[in-house]
């Protein structure tokens, strides 16, 4: 090492040492600059969370102040009308309930079965099982409008040719939330400890018996929470229903699977795109109803989760 550099470093070290020894005896309070930097950074982070909260608050206040006035029993029990003061959402509510029922009827058995396969039977070393997993992860992020195209091409028209029926709408929504149900059911199954499976199989149960009598019952709270949350997502969806051609001017409740239908979010969309200001107010009223339905559904999920969820 050359001498010049060495001297320079020794000098630097000595300098540092003096500074250090002076400071060493007493620990000063936090430097003002550091303190402010910490405060500002933390404040910015909190603000970023508060923005989301503020949007929610403003949204709710705005919807309530616009829509509460026209929200009454006749609004809930009337059919759509060209005249704002006669218009209501009965057919939209029943349509949404039909959609939810059809969706649940399709997606819960299929989603849970797929989850059981992937979690309990599938060998992750096989490429096709990994592909199924990857595919589900990807499907969960496909835009909902694309599901609408799928529904239009294969359910409404094309091979199944169901027409613009509530069945086509419910199945389209079912396909849309299927990945969500599979993913949440798998998490619920995974949370059941392996010792339960081993315990059952150690008593001579077959693999399926272990799943059916032990694992599945233990996972049901988790599975139902996930399924209910995915249904709440399904009834809030609009874009796919536009594609499968749910009409908005439906002055009757669905009478069966082949019935034409409308739905709450669709009715809201339709009223919002109307130029008349009165209809925008009706949209706000309908949003209150939709949000209340979602709150109710989510509360059920939360109650189930809190009451039945086991900590292993």
């Amino acid at each position: 090492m050359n001498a010049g550099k060495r001297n320079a470093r020794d000098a630097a070290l000595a300098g540092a040492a003096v500074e250090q020894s002076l400071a060493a005896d007493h620990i000063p309070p936090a430097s003002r600059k550091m303190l402010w930097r910490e405060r500002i950074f933390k404040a910015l982070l909190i603000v970023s969370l508060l923005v989301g909260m503020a949007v929610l608050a403003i949204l709710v206040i705005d919807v309530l102040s616009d829509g509460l006035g026209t929200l009454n029993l006749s609004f809930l029990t009337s059919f759509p009308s060209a005249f704002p003061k006669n218009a209501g959402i009965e057919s939209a509510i029943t349509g949404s309930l039909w959609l939810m029922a059809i969706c649940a009827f399709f997606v819960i058995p299929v989603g849970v079965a797929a989850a059981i396969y992937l979690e309990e039977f599938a060998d992750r070393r096989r490429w096709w099982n990994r592909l199924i997993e990857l595919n589900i992860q990807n499907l969960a992020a496909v835009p909902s409008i694309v599901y609408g195209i799928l529904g239009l091409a294969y359910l409404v028209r094309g091979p199944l040719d169901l027409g613009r029926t509530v069945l086509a709408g419910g199945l389209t929504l079912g396909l849309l939330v299927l990945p969500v149900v599979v993913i949440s059911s798998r998490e619920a199954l995974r949370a059941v400890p392996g010792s339960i499976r081993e315990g059952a199989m150690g008593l001579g149960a077959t693999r399926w018996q272990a799943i059916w009598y032990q694992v599945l019952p233990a996972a049901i709270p988790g599975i139902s929470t996930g399924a209910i949350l995915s249904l709440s997502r399904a009834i809030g969806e609009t874009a796919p229903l536009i594609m499968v051609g749910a009409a908005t001017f439906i002055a009757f409740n669905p009478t069966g699977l082949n019935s034409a239908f409308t739905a709450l979010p669709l009715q809201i969309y339709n009223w919002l795109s109307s130029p008349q200001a009165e209809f925008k107010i009706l949209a706000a009223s309908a949003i209150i109803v939709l949000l209340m339905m979602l709150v109710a559904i989510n509360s059920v999920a939360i109650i189930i989760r809190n009451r039945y969820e086991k900590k292993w």
Partner: protein
Amino acid sequence: MSQAGAVKAKADATASVFARSRPRYGELVIRASLVIAALITVLTTVGIVFALASETISFLGEVPLHDFLFGTTWSPLFEPPSYGVIPLVTGTLLTTAIGMIVGIPLGVGSAIYLSEYATSRTRKFFKPILETLAGVPTVVFGYFALTVVTPWLRKIGIEVDAFNALSGGLVIGILIVPTIASISEDALSAVPQGLREASFGLGAGRFQTSLRVVVPAAFSGIIASIVLGASRAIGETMVVLLAAGQRPNLTLDVREPVETMATFIAATGKGDIPTGSLDYKTIFAVGALLFVMTFILNIISTWVVNRYREEYE
């Protein structure tokens, strides 16, 4: 299964008490139905790809690929029609870009707060708010953009049109905050505690530890969350349909109305267009483009997330 095989071999050799009484057909049927359920998810993807591809190929038989991808006028309903998708793509990218400018700082900021600063009490307060935000239907966000944000923009002196890219983009930004925040928070929380302790032990503050140690260590996960957020923003339909209008508009002026790929699909799909018509096929062609764009982003994001999960597990 090897276990069953072993039992069977023994049964053949000795006819012992371990011999299987009868084949378990019931279990086979059950297993087959489970596999079928899993295959429905694959079938969904195949269906999407096949539907989009077949109609798109047919569309490209009538409109040259070059005109579709690089044409700068989108006017399928005019005479003569023009099918240049560029205005729809720029409209999409414009609202997405505005959304990302809002969504990235808010989402990542929320995640850093929740993972590095929040006590268990503040987490219990803030997490449900993010979850609620994620659960609000997009049509409701569309209402918010149209009836709250646009009037506010005008009030603060931004002369926006009644339908404009800015308010749609801003609300998309809010919409993707929960997506970005939750995945980023997972990534930040997965950073080993030892790294934080090392940093604090060296006299770094929380601010420095968060930005110089934890965020860099979780960087790939944060990127994945942003990519997924972008994918959601690109595919978002209702907010833009309600707030940004339906005018194919090759512009960077955020005060003007724009049409995005998703809003074109929804607006066209709404009408009763005949199967097999060129208008019908445009839905699929634009849908295919949208699907490819979001698919690439989703795959990148999934790949990155799976990779860092393996790293820490």
